[in-house]
């Protein structure tokens, strides 16, 4: 059962931000509702007002502009899994989107909502972090960029201010030398561990970025493992992968929960890193 709430339907970001600022913690942004409504039905959270963002225009498109792929925060997972532009430029994101939850969740759920709800066992934030994405947070007075690595603060907590709206996700357009992969593993409805790997193949591995999600409260870069692979040839990298995987596991800040014990998750991180490397390098 859902408790009664009032619905606000702003038509501009400024109006949405003003409503959020005015009502503070008693109001919450609502888009696809796939996670928020579950928490509300369970009585885990309750709000006097939901602010439906779906009347805002221009926030459900994918475009390539100024060396970036710009993804509107209101794009649904279903839209993204079918985007020709994403398939061409960010195939790892396409594959991730094709495997988010199930067909009904992908139909309703938005990428922006997924990121803002910051459920620890979610997929997109981890890959976006490895791809060097930036989040655009807007309010009535202007907008700012938040690096994906700064966006996630803790479980269910982001660095967005109360009156800020996530409007867009910007991913640098990959070059012909860019390689990336996202893999996940789990035995419940949500993944136990997600791992994203991105690098440029330019006389060896350059700009190596590895992010681990689901293992701990928020997705995080594992720089200890990145630096082990940085600058290595393909062959050297392959040799060193077991050690890099172990380092990534230790740095993932995995916690024991229903999705697995800490040491189990750390082990899975290592396995996924090896597989992600094979998948990325092709």
């Amino acid at each position, binding site marked *: 059962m*859902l408790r009664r709430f*009032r619905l606000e339907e702003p038509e501009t970001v400024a109006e949405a931000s003003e409503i959020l600022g005015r009502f503070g913690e008693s109001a919450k942004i609502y888009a696809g*509702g796939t996670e928020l*409504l579950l928490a509300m039905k369970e009585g885990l959270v309750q709000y006097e007002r939901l602010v439906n963002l779906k009347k805002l225009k221009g926030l459900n498109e994918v475009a390539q502009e100024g060396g970036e792929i710009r993804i509107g925060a209101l794009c649904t997972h279903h839209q993204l899994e079918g985007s020709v532009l994403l398939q061409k430029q960010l195939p790892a994101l396409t594959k991730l989107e094709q495997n988010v*939850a*199930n067909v*009904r969740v992908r139909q309703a759920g938005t990428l922006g909502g997924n990121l803002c709800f910051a459920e620890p066992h979610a997929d997109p934030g981890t890959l976006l972090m490895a791809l060097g994405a930036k989040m655009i947070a807007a309010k009535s007075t202007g907008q700012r960029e938040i690096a994906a690595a700064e966006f996630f603060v803790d479980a269910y907590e982001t660095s967005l201010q109360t009156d800020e709206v996530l409007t867009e996700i910007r991913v640098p357009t990959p070059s012909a030398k860019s390689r990336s992969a996202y893999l996940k593993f789990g035995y419940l409805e949500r993944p136990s561990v997600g791992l994203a790997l991105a690098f440029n193949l330019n006389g060896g591995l350059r700009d190596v970025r590895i992010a681990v999600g689901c293992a701990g409260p928020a997705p995080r870069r594992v720089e200890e493992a990145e630096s082990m692979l940085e600058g290595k040839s393909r062959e050297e990298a392959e040799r060193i992968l077991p050690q890099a995987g172990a380092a990534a596991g230790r740095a993932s800040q995995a916690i024991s929960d229903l999705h697995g014990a800490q040491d189990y998750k750390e082990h899975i991180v290592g396995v996924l890193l090896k597989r992600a490397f094979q998948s990325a390098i092709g």
Partner: protein
Amino acid sequence: MATAMMKSSDTQLIPLSFTLNGRLQEFDVEPHELLLDVVRERLGLTGVKRSCDVQVCGACTLLVDGRPVSACTTLAFEVRGRSVLTIEGLAENGKLHPLQEAFIEHGGFQCGFCTPGMILAAKALLDENPNPTEAELKHFMHGNICRCTGYKKIIESIMAAAKKMRSKS
């Protein structure tokens, strides 16, 4: 706010106009009302089931503009101006849909609780991909759970319906 009017200080009503199984429906809903409750309790169509209530099992699957949604987690006002199909609306002029016929012919259900959701999800699949591989079918349908575990017969039923539908078109 343009879309809503207030009946009393604590009740907000949203005018809702949509088609249900091809027939226009017009009434007001409160923001917190769920599509599942509106369809089952207010409109009396009980093919759609409440089961897991967290978008995992698929028993509450309805098609909105041809796409599957979890009615248990869809606010009723979201179907403003849209077209909703329930299992009750699938047969045409008293003739069962090929998917329904195939489920009967191939024993695609045991207790039947998941069946309305299974058939509607399968319809959405076949409408966008009339000739799915078994892997594509399993990927699309993996969010619909059968607790009798009659998956083999369900897959056979959908594949048989797909074949029949292709031969007709």
